């Protein structure tokens, strides 16, 4: 059979393919040829075939049938075979295939080979894809090579040891004696990999960490030599002596100095020296400075050094190189918690970075800006952040909006500013705000009693402009429903709309294709609420009755129940649709659930839903006012003959918390209009949460004194 084609020819052939199908055909043909060649057990051409197979594997074609061939190559005596065989093993095999264990013996032999390059290949392969079993078997060999004087092998053995430790952490102890004089090496390659090995050991085991702390003086000395040594052509990169090694040592120093005063003190001088002497015109210098800054911030350095570090970061921020700016922002984000004031000094530069064209820089700058917002700079910062929200990419808008809400809540200088800010967010990025922001906003608005007129007017105007952003529409319709009377009554600063205009807008929401079902629910409820605030009750009745046959089940249910409210329970309507009381913000999900159910789906009169469980601090019992009163309303009218002979007016309870241990009471006044002088009976159903679990209580009061109803 003719000799298999060379790798070069194969590549040339494949490159002439003009379509994917043509390429696939060529490759399949070649694979078939390779397979038959493998079957013939041809030793001469095996290396060539495996090389071709690896090329095809890189292009994405299956090459698993070559795995065994790689093993045969590894077992061969020729260096060429071993080289391509080991490469194939690293690319095609991994510990999931059982085949890989067959390599163990070959690797063991090769680790003791007379040629250092073969030993190197074996170390490389073991260090890349050695499984835990292989590592266990061969750790002894690696340890031996770690002590050799051959620097080429020693550096590979060090990295191989790192891999062994990662796979089998228990073997770490084994390498400890070999590390004793690793740092006295002159060869930079060995030094570099030794520092990597030491770093790995220190990160994995606190015992090792304390053991290696004694190396700090030696590390400091090596670093000093690197800086002071002057020009050394061997290790020079752009005028700096072996920057890679410097960065590695700085990182190890960071780990050793963390939370240890003595080590940190021993490092102070050298860190200051590196920070002030390193040349910053090229990237290498900046890489070292960056690592130095991170180390200074992480160890227990003195405050002068910390200020120096942050100033270096500040300088980085002004650098023309984008990479440096990015790196500076990343590190400032890490240090803003601990050194807040120092970072504040660079606030204006950070805010400028919001306008950068680079997406990665913008994201970092945004995160950092939110971290820097405090009571003093809230107004200025918010202006910048809102401008950013206007102009940024959609991927940022959700995070930015949430950040703005949080910041506004914590530091708002006034309620009006707070509401203005929220309005701004809703109008510019309304469709990107998170779902839970709607109830939170509604609660905020409810609690700012003096701002109701202002708020509803602004929201109404926003609604006139744009009904596509659902969160905005939901909040607006809720507010219009609640405060519609303020909207038309002339309490607003500008020209007020008339009632029909308002109803037009709300009805528009109901029919618009842009409105989601949830929004429609809000709109319908709002219209219903206006029936007690506006005079055009008939119009509202008509609208509500139309939706009684809506396809949307939720809308239909609401409409039917509201209809019933008009027909049979008309006297209860004012009380039920009364303005919402101020809601107190409870921990975690409390307010969300209150508002969601109160604002969005006021339960119908005939519905005896349980109120949602309310989280509460220990030893206090809370009752949900709204639901309590609704429930008691239901239960009052219980005469089977003519249930609705009473008219009730419920006033707010004195508090919604019943203190523990009989330390207080809650009273609620109920005014009863009883024209027919029927006997008063009251059934009460109380639902509350006590120590986290819901409790239900039923009680009946039958012993009203006759004077009260006669």
């Amino acid at each position: 059979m003719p000799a298999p084609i060379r790798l070069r020819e194969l590549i040339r052939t494949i490159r002439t393919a003009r379509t994917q199908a043509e390429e696939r055909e060529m490759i399949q043909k070649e694979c078939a040829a390779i397979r038959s060649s493998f079957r013939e057990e041809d030793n001469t051409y095996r290396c060539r075939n495996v090389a071709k197979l690896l090329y095809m594997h890189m292009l994405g074609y299956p090459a698993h049938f070559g795995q065994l061939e790689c093993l045969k190559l590894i077992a061969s005596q020729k260096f060429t075979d071993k080289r391509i065989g080991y490469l194939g093993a690293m690319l095609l095999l991994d510990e999931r295939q059982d085949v890989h264990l067959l390599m163990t013996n070959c690797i063991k032999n090769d680790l003791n080979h007379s040629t250092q390059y073969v030993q190197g290949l074996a170390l490389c392969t073991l260090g890349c894809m050695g499984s835990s079993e292989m590592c266990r078997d061969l750790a002894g060999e690696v340890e031996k090579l770690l002590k050799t004087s051959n620097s080429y092998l020693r550096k590979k053995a060090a990295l191989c040891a790192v891999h062994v430790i990662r796979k089998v952490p228990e073997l770490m102890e084994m390498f400890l004696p070999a590390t004793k004089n690793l740092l006295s090496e002159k060869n930079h390659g060995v030094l570099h990999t030794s520092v990597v090995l030491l770093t790995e050991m220190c990160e994995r085991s606190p015992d090792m960490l304390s053991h290696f702390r004694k190396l700090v003086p030696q590390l400091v000395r090596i670093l000093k030599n690197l800086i002071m040594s002057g020009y050394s052509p061997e290790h020079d990169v752009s005028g700096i002596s072996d920057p890679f090694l410097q960065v590695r040592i700085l990182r190890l120093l960071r780990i050793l100095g963390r939370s240890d005063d003595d080590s940190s003190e021993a490092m102070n001088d050298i860190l200051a020296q590196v920070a002030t002497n390193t040349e910053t015109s090229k990237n290498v210098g900046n890489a070292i400075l960056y690592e130095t800054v991170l180390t200074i911030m992480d160890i227990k350095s003195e405050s002068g050094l910390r200020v120096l570090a942050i100033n270096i970061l500040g300088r980085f921020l002004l650098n023309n190189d984008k990479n440096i700016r990015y790196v500076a922002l990343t590190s400032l984000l890490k240090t803003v918690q601990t050194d807040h004031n120092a970072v504040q000094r660079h606030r204006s530069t950070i805010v400028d970075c919001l306008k950068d064209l680079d997406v990665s820089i913008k994201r970092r700058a945004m995160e950092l800006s939110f971290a820097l917002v405090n009571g003093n700079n809230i107004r200025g910062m918010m202006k910048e952040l809102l401008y950013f929200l206007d102009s940024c990419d959609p991927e940022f808008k959700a995070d930015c909006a949430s950040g703005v809400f949080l910041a506004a809540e914590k530091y708002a200088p006034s309620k009006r500013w707070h509401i203005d800010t929220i309005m701004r967010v809703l109008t510019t990025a309304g469709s990107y705000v998170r779902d839970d922001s709607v109830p939170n906003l509604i609660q905020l608005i409810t609690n700012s009693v003096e701002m109701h007129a202002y708020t509803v007017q602004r929201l109404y105007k926003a609604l006139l402009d744009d009904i596509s952003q659902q969160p905005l529409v939901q909040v607006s319709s809720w507010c219009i429903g609640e405060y519609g009377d303020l909207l038309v009554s002339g309490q607003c600063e500008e020209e007020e709309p008339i009632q029909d205009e308002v109803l037009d807008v709300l009805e528009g929401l109901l029919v618009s294709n842009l409105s989601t079902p949830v929004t429609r629910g809000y709109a319908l409820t709002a219209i219903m609420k206006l029936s007690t605030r506006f005079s055009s009750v008939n119009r509202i009745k008509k609208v509500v009755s139309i939706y009684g046959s809506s396809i949307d089940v939720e809308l239909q249910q609401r409409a039917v129940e509201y209809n019933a409210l008009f027909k049979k329970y008309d006297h209860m309507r004012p009380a039920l649709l009364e303005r919402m009381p101020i809601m107190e913000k409870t921990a975690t999900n409390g307010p969300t659930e209150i508002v969601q159910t109160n604002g969005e789906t006021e339960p119908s009169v005939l519905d005896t839903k349980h109120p949602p469980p309310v989280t509460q601090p220990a030893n206090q019992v809370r009752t949900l006012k709204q639901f309590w009163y609704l429930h008691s309303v239901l239960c009052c009218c219980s005469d089977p003959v003519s249930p609705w002979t009473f008219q009730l007016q419920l006033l707010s309870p004195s508090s919604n918390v019943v203190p523990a241990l009989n330390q207080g009471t809650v009273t609620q006044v109920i005014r009863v209009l009883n024209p027919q002088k029927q006997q008063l009976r009251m059934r009460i159903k109380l639902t509350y949460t006590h120590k986290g679990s819901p409790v239900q209580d039923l009680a009946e009061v039958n012993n009203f004194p006759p004077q009260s109803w006669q």
Partner: protein
Amino acid sequence: MIKAILIFNNHGKPRLIRFYQYFAEDLQQQIIRETFHLVSKRDDNVCNFLEGGSLIGGSDYKLIYRHYATLYFVFCVDSSESELGILDLIQVFVETLDKCFENVCELDLIFHMDKVHYILQEVVMGGMVLETNMNEIVAQVELQNRMEKSEGGLSAAPARAVSAVKNMNLPEIPRNINIGDINIKVPSLSPF
């Protein structure tokens, strides 16, 4: 730790793929495509760091890349590597390739994919940086290449020469060459 090193051209064709963590074959190709998609969108004057795509793994990974003429060199690293340091490492790797191939261009990487792997093996091992001294790397690669050459290299040249001679039809050589007065007797050569 370096999770992967990818070199592909401006059209997304892979020129060198090295993963230091296990990924199934089809996932590897998906990662290459996704990385190309992310990196090719980038303008030339933005920073060289990208938060990694979703496939290669979560929040701890970054893509650090450099664009040289027609090739993208992408290193996918986690937080234990210095970003600026990796940028320098890419530069060192490319300069080493330049020294080994003498003014390296994309064609060199295409036709000598195995050699590029060997060079990379001397720079990064098991996802960790092994050697950064360019001269050292070049010297070691050179010595190994010489060893390979002495054995005939990947194309197994001497074996081919031997088989070529084997296939020569020696008995066809004339035993007596008569050029007029000179009579040379050719010794009988045993076929080998």
